[in-house]
Structure formats: structure tokens, C-alpha cells
């Protein structure tokens, strides 16, 4: 594959051929302009082929059979784990497959819930698990940026255990408020769960700052990396967080697979979540013991084909080059910020420069509801997301009921940003606003 042009930049028009859906026309025969990769990405044929080859040649229940197909399927599944691990600078035994990032984050919240329930009922937990027991007065900290997937599980955990939820606020400019960070994190803080990159504002959070604050009080650090892993080189060894979650479908992979990363020793100190086949060590009629991580967290027949597809997605991203992708997205983002920012009555939410900022550009337009803006764009074949993007409290904080969001990926082109800006101007005209 040669996916770059002479000056080392992405050869977008070539790589677009790998994505059959991008050749589609949509409403009114318009070519598809897909600016909704923040919700889910499109898939290259390489990923679809890898999945299909698994099904047509090697399909069997992994970790459950001794025949040749079962061996091959298990090998394919575990090799995928290694590939995905390497993609984020981890080792294979630190990678747990889940159905999406949401399950991965819930897994962590439930580890606390389970350890606490076992403690309350005197039926455990083991000494290792003590770290996950929440006692009266214990606190959990999140930020105002959070996607519902990294907020509601903690709200619910608090309801189930009596722990207290604390919220680190953001500044007017859409950055993490350091003063609030300092004020919220305290000796009672047991977990700090936050997003690496806001799926609404694009803001990249200062991970080291949060990690330092959490470390100082011995709190566990959980990072929602859904919007970072697909778009920039993420290396878990450098980040310094304890646990990290992301989804396959946002990074060219199939639907139905997500990842939880954690150091193996930490994962092994967590009580199991879903229980059943393949995650056990011994099962007796009335009690069981459990396998080591990652198997401990992978109950039942897993999404093997999807793991193979996600590994193919990692290979694809590597072959294109993560740095190139990041640069390319930055260019598009800068262009979008400039073009959209120049439209009267349009307000970009969050940072308006590309400093520590990814390629999600959410905005509101005076006098026109985001959904109506999105509808007019859709009519021109431009797919954006409208609504609160699963970050409702953040929108309230920004005094916006909802917003229109464009988000970029490796296959987007500058012409698509122009089309977006044209569409927004046309919408303003259509509704006779401003």
C-alpha cells in the first residue's frame, strides 16, 4: 500500500478506495460526505476481508477446543490480542476484550461494586481486592467533559454503594480547570475517571496533571480513550494511567468489540465481572475460582471474528501511520475552525485553535436548532451528528441544549470541510436566520 504522497502527507484520495461506503451517493444523488467518525468510523476492505477469512477458514469456539480449527481460531484470536496490545504499547496479557468501551468502563465500575458487596456481606473479597472496596465517605471523581459512558456507570456505582460523586469543572475556554482539579481530588478520592479527548469539544486533557493529582492521594486513574486511540499514537506506558478503555468501531474496526487495558497485576486484583465459561479456574456446584486476567474478564464465547477485524484495523492504521493521521486531522480541524468561525452567528464550542485539540468540531448557530442544521447538511449528503452527543451535562454547562458536530478521520478531505461550511451557510439562508 502506498498511502502517502511525495511530501509524506496522506494520499487521501487513494486510501478512500479502501472504503467502499465512501463511494456511495446519498440523498439527492449527492456523494457521501462522512463527517461523523466521532460516532463511528467507516471500515476498509482489509478489515472486512480479515473477518470474512476468519469465518470462511478458521471459525471455531476459541479456548474451548482441541481440534485444528479450534487451535487456529484461538491462535487468530490471541494473535489479534497481541497486535492490539502492541498498537497501544502494551503486552497481550493486559488486554481484555469487551463488546464496546461502555462495557469496559462498566467492568471497572462493577469491580468496585462487587468488591464492596462482597465486603458488606462478609463473603470476601480477597486481600488483593481490598483496593476496590468503597467505604462510607469514599469519593469518585469525574469531569464535566465526560461522555455518558464514563459518567452514568459511576453515578450508578455511587447509588449502589453510598460513595459520593465529585465533578471537576471546565473553564470557559473548554479546558480542564486546574483549580477545580486541585479542589476536588482529596484523600477520600478513590477513583479519578476522565476522558482523554472530549468527543464534543475536541479538547485533549492534560493526562499527566490529572495522574499526578490522583497519584498524590492514591486514587485509581481510569482513562476513557475512545477519542484518542483512533486518532493519535497512544502509549499506555507513557500515560501513567491505571486503566484505559476504547472501542473498535471508532478506529476502523468492526462493531461489537471494545478494549479494556490494565496492568496484569491490577487486572488480577479485580473481582470478575461477567461470569460463566472460559473465565473459570475450577467450578464446583456451589462455588468457583477464577482464571487470571485477561481470561477472567472474558466469559462465554468471545467476539473472535471482531478481534481479528480490529487487529486488521490496527495494522491498517499503522501502515498509514498514526502521526500522519494526526497531522492530517489537524489540518482539517484548523480549516474547519477557520471556515466555520468566519460564519456570522456560528459559535464553536470549546477551543478555537488546534492546540491540544482533536478533530471534533461542535457548534451552534444562532436561531437555528442543531438538528435543523444537520438536516440541511444531510440533504446535501453531509453526515454530521446532532444532539448532545451523549454528553448532556457538558452541553448544559455550555448553555447549549444541543449542538451540531463534525468530526474528521483519515479519509476526509479539505473539500469536505468546504462543503460543510457551504452547507451551514445555506442552512442559515434557508431558515432565514441571523
Amino acid at each position, binding site marked *: 500500500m502506498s498511502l502517502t504522497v511525495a511530501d509524506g502527507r496522506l494520499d487521501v484520495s487513494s486510501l478512500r478506495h479502501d472504503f467502499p461506503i465512501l463511494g456511495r451517493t446519498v440523498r*439527492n444523488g449527492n456523494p457521501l460526505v462522512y463527517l461523523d467518525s466521532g460516532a463511528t468510523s467507516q471500515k476498509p476492505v482489509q478489515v472486512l476481508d480479515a473477518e470474512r477469512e476468519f469465518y470462511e477458514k478458521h471459525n471455531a469456539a476459541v479456548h474451548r477446543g482441541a481440534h485444528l480449527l479450534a487451535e487456529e481460531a484461538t491462535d487468530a484470536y490471541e494473535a489479534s490480542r497481541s497486535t492490539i496490545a502492541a498498537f497501544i504499547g502494551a503486552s497481550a496479557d493486559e488486554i481484555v476484550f469487551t463488546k464496546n468501551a461502555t462495557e469496559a468502563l462498566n467492568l471497572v465500575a462493577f469491580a468496585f461494586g462487587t468488591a464492596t458487596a462482597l465486603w458488606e456481606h462478609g463473603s470476601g473479597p480477597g486481600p488483593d481486592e481490598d483496593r476496590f472496596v468503597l467505604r462510607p465517605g469514599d469519593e469518585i471523581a469525574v469531569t464535566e467533559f465526560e461522555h455518558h459512558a464514563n459518567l452514568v456507570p459511576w453515578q450508578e456505582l455511587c447509588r449502589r454503594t453510598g460513595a459520593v460523586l465529585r465533578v471537576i469543572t471546565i473553564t470557559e475556554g473548554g479546558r480542564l480547570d486546574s483549580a477545580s482539579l486541585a479542589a476536588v481530588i482529596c484523600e477520600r478520592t478513590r477513583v479519578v475517571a476522565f476522558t482523554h479527548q472530549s468527543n464534543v469539544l475536541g479538547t485533549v486533557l492534560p493526562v499527566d496533571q490529572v495522574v499526578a493529582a490522583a497519584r498524590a492521594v492514591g486514587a485509581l486513574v481510569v482513562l476513557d480513550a475512545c477519542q484518542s486511540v483512533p486518532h493519535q499514537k497512544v502509549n499506555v506506558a507513557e500515560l501513567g494511567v491505571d486503566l484505559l478503555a476504547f472501542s473498535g468501531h471508532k478506529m476502523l474496526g468492526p462493531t461489537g468489540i471494545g478494549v479494556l487495558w490494565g496492568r496484569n497485576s491490577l487486572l488480577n486484583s479485580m473481582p470478575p465481572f461477567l461470569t460463566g465459561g472460559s473465565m473459570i479456574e475450577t467450578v464446583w456446584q456451589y462455588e468457583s475460582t477464577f482464571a487470571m486476567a485477561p481470561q477472567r474478564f472474558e466469559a462465554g464465547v468471545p467476539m473472535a471474528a471482531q478481534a481479528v477485524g480490529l487487529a486488521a484495523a490496527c495494522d491498517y492504521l499503522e501502515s498509514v501511520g498514526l502521526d500522519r493521521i494526526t497531522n492530517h486531522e489537524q489540518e482539517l480541524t484548523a480549516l474547519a475552525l477557520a471556515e466555520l468561525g468566519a460564519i456570522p452567528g456560528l459559535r464553536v464550542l470549546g477551543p478555537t485553535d488546534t492546540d491540544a485539540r482533536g478533530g471534533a468540531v461542535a457548534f451552534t448557530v444562532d436561531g437555528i436548532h442543531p*438538528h435543523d442544521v444537520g*438536516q*440541511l447538511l444531510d440533504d446535501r449528503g453531509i453526515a454530521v451528528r446532532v*444532539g448532545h452527543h451523549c454528553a448532556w451535562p457538558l*452541553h448544559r454547562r455550555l448553555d447549549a441544549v*444541543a449542538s451540531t458536530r463534525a468530526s474528521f478521520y483519515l479519509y476526509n478531505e479539505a473539500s469536505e470541510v468546504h462543503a460543510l461550511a457551504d452547507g451551514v451557510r445555506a442552512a442559515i439562508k*434557508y*431558515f432565514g436566520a441571523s
Partner: protein
Amino acid sequence: MEVDSLYQELILDHYKRPHGRGLREPFGAEVHHVNPTCGDEITLRVDLSDDDVVRDVSYDGQGCSISQASASILYEQVVGQSRKDAEGILAAFLELMHGRGQVEPNEEILGDAIAFAGVAKYPARVKCALLSWLAWEDAVLRIRAERNGSNG
């Protein structure tokens, strides 16, 4: 543009100049409904006379053109009607909205609400059109439940 079938002239008119907007007294029940996918909300009051005539529907809230116009047309269509007739309009409106563009709208029953026929072809907007109507249904149910409660 295909989208013109959605944004009928009449819908845009009602959106820009909504009828009956604002919360008024008296009312039998007030409800608050939310559209979870977009976050839009409506507060809606219904005043139902003892002989089951819809005397007033008053509302406030935020939302897209479709939801705002829909509330305005709801007001137009049901105020002054008997509850029974208003429920007939609601039923016809629900059928139209869930019809995916396959249901022939009955102008006699629906009146101006037939302008929403095009919405049915945009599944993501059906919830917008229904927000106020379902709030109205809920409010009427509550009034009747309360009456039955105090009767029984």
C-alpha cells in the same frame, strides 16, 4: 431539495410564529417531556372542561423547527375540540408519523397537521413531531386519572 418535503411552508411559518405558546392558567395538568436523543424539552398544560372539551393547551420549551411547529399546530387543532375528537386527531397523527411515508393522510381529520406527512419519511424527526402530542396525551390521561381518583 428533498428536504422541502420535510420543511413545508406551513411548518416553517408555525416555527417562526408559533401559536398558543406560553404557559397559561387555568390547567388540569402540567407535564414535562424530554426527547432523550437531542435533549429538547416541552412543558405543556391542558385545561379540560368538565364536559370534556379541550379549553386550552399552553406550552413552553425548546426544540427544533419540527417540534416547535408541531406544538403550535397541536394547539391549533385540538383547542376547542371535544376530548374524543382531539384523541381522534392524535390517533390519526400517530398513524401518519409511524407510517414511514406510506400512510395517506386524512386531511379532514388532521387539518393543518397533514403538513407533517413529509416528516414520516425522516425517522429521526418523528420524535420531534410527536414530542408535544405525546405530552398532550399524557396530560389528558393525568387529568382523567385524577378525576377518576377523586370520584372513586
